């Protein structure tokens, strides 16, 4: 008995040291993840002049919301918000429609040459024509500089299709057959029986699909030009770069006139503010879609 208690005491001392370093490390990393968001937020609502001097570190000072009003006056920003929202909504719906229909059909044994078509879809995960052939293809299809270039490629989503198929296969066949007896066609069965039963997987795919669309940026770079189809992400990037350019200009040209400084301070605050506008939707849905994490990892993990 004595030895056991000795071991236990020794353990707990070691344990406490372990716990201390463990929690210390995790806390530091957690702060590293959260502080930048907080920093940008307090900088977006503090006095622009203090922001320019890098004075806002822990708490906001001279709080004002003028920057938020200002950025929405900026040419193109409201439109960009609209484009971002539209592509997110339409793109997510299109992607859900495709993966639901295909996933359901692939779960049906009687589908004409099911095995072949399943492989035909799944194999697209393993090859890609590449960046430039993809670009040429979009060009040839006449999708350049159209809204469709944002949303139509979402029709392709082999991972999602597999997830839906696996999910539908777990639904007891008797549920579907009872409707079959009543002579309902595939479409009716899909809409009235399968879709309601597949809500959990559809919600997962919707949430991840929406975040993907909101964050998407390369398609704007590759397939659009001009301001008509700019998204929030591309406006933000443009602004981040232009402010750096301006800062360099002022630095190199030595133009430290009041007007130049003014422009710079406002650009910096505007930068923080647009960043916030772009992040806020993600942060708002975040608590909601945490529920789907465990299902979501399947999206990354499922292969074939």
């Amino acid at each position, binding site marked *: 008995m004595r030895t*056991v208690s000795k*071991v236990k005491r020794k*353990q707990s001392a070691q344990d406490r040291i*372990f*716990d201390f370093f*463990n*929690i210390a490390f995790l806390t530091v*990393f*957690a702060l*590293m*993840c959260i502080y*930048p*968001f907080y*920093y940008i937020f307090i900088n977006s609502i503090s006095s622009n002049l203090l922001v320019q001097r*890098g004075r806002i*570190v822990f708490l906001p000072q001279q709080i004002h919301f003028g920057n938020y009003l200002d950025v929405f006056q900026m040419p193109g920003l409201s439109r960009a918000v609209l484009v971002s929202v539209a592509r997110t909504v339409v793109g997510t719906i299109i992607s859900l429609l495709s993966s639901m*229909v295909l996933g359901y*059909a692939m779960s*049906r044994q*009687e*589908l*004409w*040459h*099911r095995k072949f078509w399943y492989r*035909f*879809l799944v194999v*697209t995960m393993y090859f*890609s*024509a*590449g*960046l*430039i*052939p*993809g670009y040429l*293809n979009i060009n040839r*299809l006449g999708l350049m500089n159209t809204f469709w270039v944002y949303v*139509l490629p979402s*029709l392709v989503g082999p991972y999602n299709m597999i997830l839906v198929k696996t999910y539908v296969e777990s639904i007891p066949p008797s549920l579907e057959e009872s409707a079959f007896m009543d002579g309902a066609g*595939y*479409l009716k069965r899909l809409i009235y029986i399968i879709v309601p039963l597949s809500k959990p997987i559809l919600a997962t795919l919707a949430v991840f699909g929406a*975040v993907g669309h909101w*964050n998407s*940026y*390369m398609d704007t*770079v590759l397939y659009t030009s001009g301001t008509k189809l700019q998204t929030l*992400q591309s406006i*933000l*990037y443009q602004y*981040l770069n232009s402010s*750096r350019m301006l800062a360099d200009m002022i630095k190199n040209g030595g133009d430290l006139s009041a007007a130049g400084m003014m422009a710079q301070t406002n650009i910096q605050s505007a930068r923080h503010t*647009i*960043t916030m506008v772009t*992040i806020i939707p993600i942060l708002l849905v*975040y608590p909601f879609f*945490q529920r789907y*994490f*465990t299902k*979501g*990892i399947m999206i990354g993990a499922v292969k*074939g």
Partner: protein
Amino acid sequence: MGAIHLLIKRKKLKPGVKLFLGILPFILAYVIFCYLPLTGWSYAFYDYRPGRQLTDCEFVGLRYFTNMFENPVSRRELLRVMTNTVAMSAMGLMTSFLPMFFAIMLNEVRHRKYRKFVQTVTTIPNFISWILVFAIASAMFSVESGALNVLLKELGIIDQGLNILGTSKHAWLFMLLLGLWKGLGWSSVIYMSSLSGIDQELYEAASVDGASRFQRIRYITIPGLMPTFVTLFIMGIGNFLNMGMDQYYVFSNAFNKEKIEVLSLYTYNVGLAGNNISRGTAIGMMQSAIALVLLFASNMLSGKIREEKVF
């Protein structure tokens, strides 16, 4: 459409065929967006000039492929880009054990609410775009008013702000750290879920035998997570060259381009930004070919190690 309708009615198609006709539009989307682009590979064999028809351009055979290696300038470029790609990919693979350790550390926190808090907070960066990461990095590290430089100047450690974003020095490391910041929490989620699959009786039995906490981690937790780690590692090998270009596109500038340009970004810079479609396509094809070899290799490896192929 009417004719098809009539056909279906008259011939009384089997249900399986009917179903197929129903999903045909969606299958066509895969053809259009995945298979059709493959025809674009033909551009690598012509001397394509924008604005012209491909058939009006000169057929050059493998010239763009051989040029890549024979022309000393482009060979040097390619070598540099490959070095960047391989180095950053390898660094990513070498640090791929970190999410597993992070999950173990998180698992050792007894306070449930705190554990949940850390997990929630560290997962957020995964869901923001690289543009937003760039915005955050600019806010943190910019020379004049970035939080880090202000802090260091305040403490008197430096007089001149560090230009972290605008230097090729340690660019690989910086990219790696950004990737870890963004992905560590999220990548650990999969390990968190495999942790719950480890038989709790093993821990109890180990405690009875007097195993210390480290011993339990060493002999139960880590072996329990190994299959997940090996699977992900092998997949990582398969995707060795397929680094998304977002991160590198967003962070590259005139100063760090040397070190940051990876293969996919190089393809973009040559083919689209540099308007040399044929050469860009050739580089992309070479990348695809190597990627395919790696994919098969990783799949074979997976077959050997886990006796289960990924596809």
